[in-house]
């Protein structure tokens, strides 16, 4: 299935892009994140990142469906 991924903040820097579409067989978002973590060499681990699927915050064990939009959001605090 195809998943649209959107990156923010430190993850955008590490991925070198704001968004990408990936072909994946990952059953849920946690698995997808782990594969992207090794692909892009993310320094942040999953517990530091919040996950949104189709513009709602969800848990990491949420199953993915073809065409889902997945957003990874690291914490930010600048001002």
């Amino acid at each position, binding site marked *: 299935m195809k998943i649209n991924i*959107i990156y*923010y*903040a*430190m993850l*955008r*820097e590490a991925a070198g892009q*704001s968004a990408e579409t990936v072909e994946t067989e990952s059953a849920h978002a946690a698995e997808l994140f782990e594969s992207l973590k090794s692909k892009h060499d993310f320094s942040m681990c999953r*517990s*530091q990142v*919040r996950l*949104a699927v189709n*513009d*709602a*915050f969800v848990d990491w064990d949420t199953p993915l469906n073809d065409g889902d939009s997945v*957003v990874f*959001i*690291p*914490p*930010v*605090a*600048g*001002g």
Partner: protein
Amino acid sequence: MMFAIRSEPLNAEQLKSEAEDPACGALVTFEGWVRNHNEGHDVTSLEYEAYSALAVAEGERILAEAKEKFGLEKAVCVHRVGHLQIGDIAVWVGVSTPHRDAAFKANRYIIDEIKVRVPIWKKEHYVAGDSGWVDCEQCAKHGHQPKMDYARQTVLKEIGPLGQRKLAESRVLVVGAGGLGCPVLTYLAGAGVGRIGIVEHDHLEASNLHRQFLYAPENLGEKKAALAAEWLKRYNPAIEIETHPARFQTLEVEQIQDYDIIVECVDCMETKLLVNRVALKAGVPVVFASIYQFEGQVQVVDSESSCLECLYEGGAPTDVPSCAVAGVLGAVPGVIGSIQALEAIKQLLGLDGRLSNELLIVNLVDYSTRRIALPRNDACPAHAASAPLPASVDVTIDEIDLSRFQVIDIREPDEVAAEPLPCEHVHIPMNTLLGNPRRVEKDGTYLLVCAAGVRTRYAANAFRAAGYDNVYSLVGGNRMLPPS
């Protein structure tokens, strides 16, 4: 601090001795003299007339402002009234401060403000025999204070005259007067928010200036709260500005409850989390924002909605990069702070499209925005900590969150030795505690523990009778506490 109006000649030496302070390294004095000409006329003498009651009140206010702004130890200002001759002293100002820079600035501030704000009028007598009242700065300003005209925003149907009145009655606390705080403060003041509080403990640094447009290089090292307030008072003299030149944690809950909404503009995750906790406890909504390089996040938290800790479930991270580490371009907090100001106005007026139970993410690389739904998490520790406490004196271990209480073991030493408490606590035997009620503080929350709950009920009731409604008795005694 002394401000006076006098009709007898001023004695500079005597005034100087009143302005001296042995703890200060600098004394700057100013003498305003009657001169023999003004705007082409030869002057023989002058008459000053004051509206004394108002003049003294305003003069004292100016000295108090100077004390706050420049850290004065002593300030003396005396203005003459009556008939003065050439060479007489018309006004005398003396200030003492630890160092010279503040003394020069403070003296200059006082005389400039006196000239403009204190109701004193001057009549000149000329060589030609005629005389005339001088158009002094006070006369020009008095009663003709130029005002901001809100017509361009009241024409909006969302605002209108009623909305404008509501803004004038609103009170907003802005925490942090930096990159986000500058646009927030400016747009709230410009919109006519009636009272704005500024919480900012920092002094101005050169690295602030590129994004913090309320400040200028000449003010480096000065307190940002006072500088921001000074600019905002000039920008909109009709509104009230309060400064809290301290860290947010020094504010009392009651001070926070004095505001309708908080706009959080701090560059530090720990402070954001603290504002979240305190605001939930105080029941005051908050507009949060954070930036990272070219991105911003905005979230509104109130007692009904999801909060900052709901966002960072399972413990919020505190090792998040600040602007100093990640880098920041001024326009980014400019945009995000403007959104915060707009959101605060939306919240105050109940306008459509305001944020609720969601996180707004603004990406200024590709100019995209996203609103991500964030439902309230009832298990979130911040909500649990702000839940109301039971009303009754007796509480069971099942109905309370033990982590919110300071446990006091009131049993006798032999009982304690036989069965020590399995949790963190202090030991104060009942009679000692009742004899020293000050061991309990009014803003703490205490759980008294004995062997069965009988002595603690008696003791807790005694505290309640003395006005402490924050002391509870554990039903069933020490054995009810979970093993460690």
